[in-house]
């Protein structure tokens, strides 16, 4: 009983503060607590920035808690959001398991939870309202389809895989392989792990070029992320070949540097993993608050393909977000 009282008091207090902040706002401003993993990569930082920008656009009050890669910090953050009585909690879960008990607390407090960019493993699907993630298998498919179309279904591909055993590496390979299987003229002649890094991407590409007759046997390189593609581009250049022409370059993620490379004609396509995970989540939340209609359990973000013709503008648009 007393616990409920505390929560409602906290809600009242929060509402009072918001009320003081925006006197003329007629209806109550939505408050969302966002437990972010940390800022380990440029993409992650962009996700946080975009979440803030999208919240401002919709007049949502966003509270961000940085977990510094630790689940215990995320659990603490969720508990504190429950205590503050926010209207919704967003979590970008650092690991897949161990969320059940804290999510139960949020459920008891009737606070909807939205997972961003990663799924969790739980038996009780009712613990969260929806998950907004990209489909990494689909990303591989989009990259493969572009390459098949571009080369008329005839291409000897070398593949730079992500870290062995990581789920994006497994799925991006799977999606691409599906397209290769559909096109008898397409073949993956070499595949190795470049650990998602520039340095390893470059080293592996150097070996591929030597192993495939000085690069003459390679029609395209498919990298599981843009950073490895950037490394591969340098290896191709140092071998005296033209990246983007002698060897096509297609990769996934859509970080600013690959748009720069595309604008310079050295890369051919990238499939964006959008950092805007929060936007669709806000929309689902607003719809839910308005008429109580629960969104589907999985909201798939768009895996858009970008090519050199828009690269320059896209680079300008992105370079500050990352």
């Amino acid at each position, binding site marked *: 009983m007393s616990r409920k009282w505390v929560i409602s008091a906290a809600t009242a207090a929060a509402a009072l503060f918001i009320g003081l902040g925006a006197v003329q706002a007629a209806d109550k401003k939505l408050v969302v607590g966002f437990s972010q993993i940390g800022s380990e990569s*440029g993409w992650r*930082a962009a996700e946080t920035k975009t979440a803030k920008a999208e919240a401002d656009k919709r007049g949502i009050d966003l509270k961000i808690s940085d977990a510094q890669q630790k689940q215990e910090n995320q659990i603490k953050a969720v508990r504190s959001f429950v205590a503050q009585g926010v209207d919704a909690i967003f979590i970008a879960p650092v690991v897949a398991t161990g969320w059940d008990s804290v999510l139960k607390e949020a459920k008891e407090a009737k606070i909807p939870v939205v997972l961003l960019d990663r799924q969790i493993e739980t038996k009780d699907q009712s613990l969260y309202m929806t998950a907004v993630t990209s489909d990494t298998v689909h990303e591989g498919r989009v990259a493969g389809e572009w390459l098949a179309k571009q080369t008329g279904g005839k291409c000897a591909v070398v593949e730079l895989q992500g870290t*062995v055993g990581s789920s994006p590496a497994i799925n991006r390979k799977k999606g691409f392989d599906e397209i290769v299987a559909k096109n008898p003229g397409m073949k993956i002649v070499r595949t190795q792990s470049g650990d998602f890094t520039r340095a390893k991407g*470059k080293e592996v590409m150097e*070996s591929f070029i030597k192993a495939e007759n000085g690069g003459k046997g390679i029609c395209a390189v498919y990298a599981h992320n843009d*950073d490895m593609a950037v*490394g591969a581009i340098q290896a191709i250049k*140092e071998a*005296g070949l033209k990246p983007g022409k002698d060897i096509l370059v297609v990769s996934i993620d859509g970080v600013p540097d690959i748009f720069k490379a595309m604008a310079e004609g050295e890369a051919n396509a990238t499939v964006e993993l959008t950092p805007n995970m929060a936007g669709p989540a806000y929309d689902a939340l607003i719809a839910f608050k308005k008429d109580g209609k629960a969104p589907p359990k999985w909201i798939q973000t768009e895996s858009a393909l970008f090519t050199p013709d828009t690269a320059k503008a896209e680079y300008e648009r992105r370079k500050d977000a990352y």
Partner: protein
Amino acid sequence: MTLSAPGPARNLPQYGALIAVLLANWLLFPDFFAIRLQDGRLFGSLIDVLNRGAPVALLAVGMTMVIATRGVDLSVGAVMAISGAIAATMTGAGWSLPAVLAASLAAGLLCGLWNGVLVAVLRIQPIIATLILMVAGRGIAQLVTEGQIVTFTSPALAFIGSGSFLTVPMPVVLTIVVLAVTALLVRATALGLMIEAVGVNRLSSAGAGVNTPVVLVAVYVWCGLCAAVAGLIVTADIRGADANNAGLWLELDAILAVVVGGTSLLGGRFGLVLSVVGALIIQAMNTGILLSGFKPEFNLIVKAGVLLVVLLLQSPTLTLFLPRPKGARPIGTVKPPVAPTSGGAKP
């Protein structure tokens, strides 16, 4: 001149292993030894081995000195990240190359000084003392780059990674220079002897008049400098500082290179050139795996298997069982998993 101790026969496992790995690469990939000129720079798989092996070889040179004093430096990978982060960030801010190089090397020197003082003056065990910087260093590098991959376009700095001197790639040139300078410092002066003395027994060498704190600080500083040069190379190579990944786990490769090179972790005796050979063995395997077309899942297993064989060859217990024909036998020495067992099983 041999830079390692007693007798040329001791070096056989290292050179034999290197030759065997290179030959295995050649069998897997017939063009392995093919070298041509590309844009005035040597180009070929063998050059890749030297070029990609350069950072670990540099780390191994510094690490050999440290290990010879019965220490270890776990922070070299993080120091690489710091030096690279400083180089890329300063270049991006418009500093000139000499200033950039001076700042990066100074950072390496400071890191080495920090380790050296912890070990020599405060007498903290080396593995713990350097663990501090191993953990904190990457954080420092991330602070410098603000968590992003800082890229630059300066051709002057990029030259260190992908330029060449008399057709030899710059990383290889730098490694040879650092190796030569180090060898000169320790073998043309009494410094090498003092390092070995400290490694054998710190107390008695102090009693014999060796200024042990100075010797210890000096080896950690030198190790930091070597790491800073390695950091410059990897940053210049990809034209960007990746604080999260630059030099990640390379401290382990460096220690491995030193051990494969036959220097004992118990300190005392060391072989500089052999440590570099150790680094080349590791890189020759990496390059071979990439050329072979094995699935990436096998990389680590293949690497571990070959290393096990090289280390078994140096095992004092197992070498007793090896047949000892006279004369050089580089090939015979490297087919050992069979040799020791059959030798041992003889009734």
